[in-house]
């Protein structure tokens, strides 16, 4: 599986990428939505893990743009917010059921990625 991680917290996304990489997962990361859009121009990813709240372009908007470029890509959202109702409504609007709340459990993240890929 080839994974693209996107979060504006660079230290978070780079450490998470390293941990996934140690588990044999092929992973790249971006700390801005614009960087993520550039990366998909030259590489193919099976799944994108996106932070919901990012400056300039939210994770929900990024998903919409990535889907235009990569229709088969699967998505998992990550949020720091505990406000479940608002978040579920946003996910429903974005057409995905996969989400995780920070701080992440890497085992749960890998489980969710496997589930999303089996869809």
């Amino acid at each position, binding site marked *: 599986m080839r994974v693209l991680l996107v979060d504006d917290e660079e*230290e978070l996304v780079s450490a998470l990428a390293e941990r996934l990489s*140690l588990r044999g997962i092929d992973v790249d990361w971006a700390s801005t939505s614009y960087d993520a859009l550039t990366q998909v121009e030259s590489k193919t990813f099976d799944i994108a893990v996106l932070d919901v709240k990012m400056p300039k372009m939210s994770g929900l908007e990024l998903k919409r743009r990535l889907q235009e470029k990569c229709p088969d890509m699967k998505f998992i959202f990550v949020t*720091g*917010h505990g406000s479940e109702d608002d978040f579920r409504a946003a996910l429903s609007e974005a057409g995905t059921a996969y989400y995780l709340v920070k*701080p992440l459990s*890497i085992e749960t993240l890998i489980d969710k990625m496997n589930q999303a890929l089996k869809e």
Partner: protein
Amino acid sequence: MSWKSDIIGETGLQFYGKTAASLSHEMKNALAIINEHAGLLKDLALMAEAGTPMDPGRLTSLAEKVMKQIRRADGIVTTMNRFAHSVDESIKDVDLGEILEFGATLSRRLASMRGVTLEPRLVTTPVRITTNPFFLQNLLSLCVDFATAAAGGGKTVGLSAEETENGAQVRLTGLEGLGEVLLDTFPATREKALLEALRAQLAVDTEAGQLVLALPRDID
């Protein structure tokens, strides 16, 4: 309670909630980073147990990153505590420069979501006024919210305080898009209620791209 008191109460609660949500989001991020670094340390320890040599420099680097996030989290908690105490006294002698700097700290994350940088310009001499600090912080937050929308992404909004003949004024500069925003929506009812409560006046200067908030020296 008058309708104006109701509006001020409601907008105050909204401000309190929005600020608490923003700060707790920041805190979650700091904790999430500590979580990943701790996880990485555990991964490296497991690899060392299995025979992979451990690089002491890597451990030092990870420990420093954890400490950096602990300092960040401590700063967030200090900010939350200071904000919580901002309602302790309804009338207080304050340094407007300090109020602006704290207001910029509270609004920085929300501004950065719009791609806008907030730049409080410090003055060497304190600009002191007697006012309601929470109402003022609330009004400043609403002005900053409007200003960041008017400035547009990639821009910097400056915040400065200066003494005037009758009190002091706050200037929000760099609002180049003022001409394009709907000025008939600002100041709205809640801003007007806070302006009245603070005995303040707000001027929107489209040509200069700035908001000027005039405050009395003493609210009483």
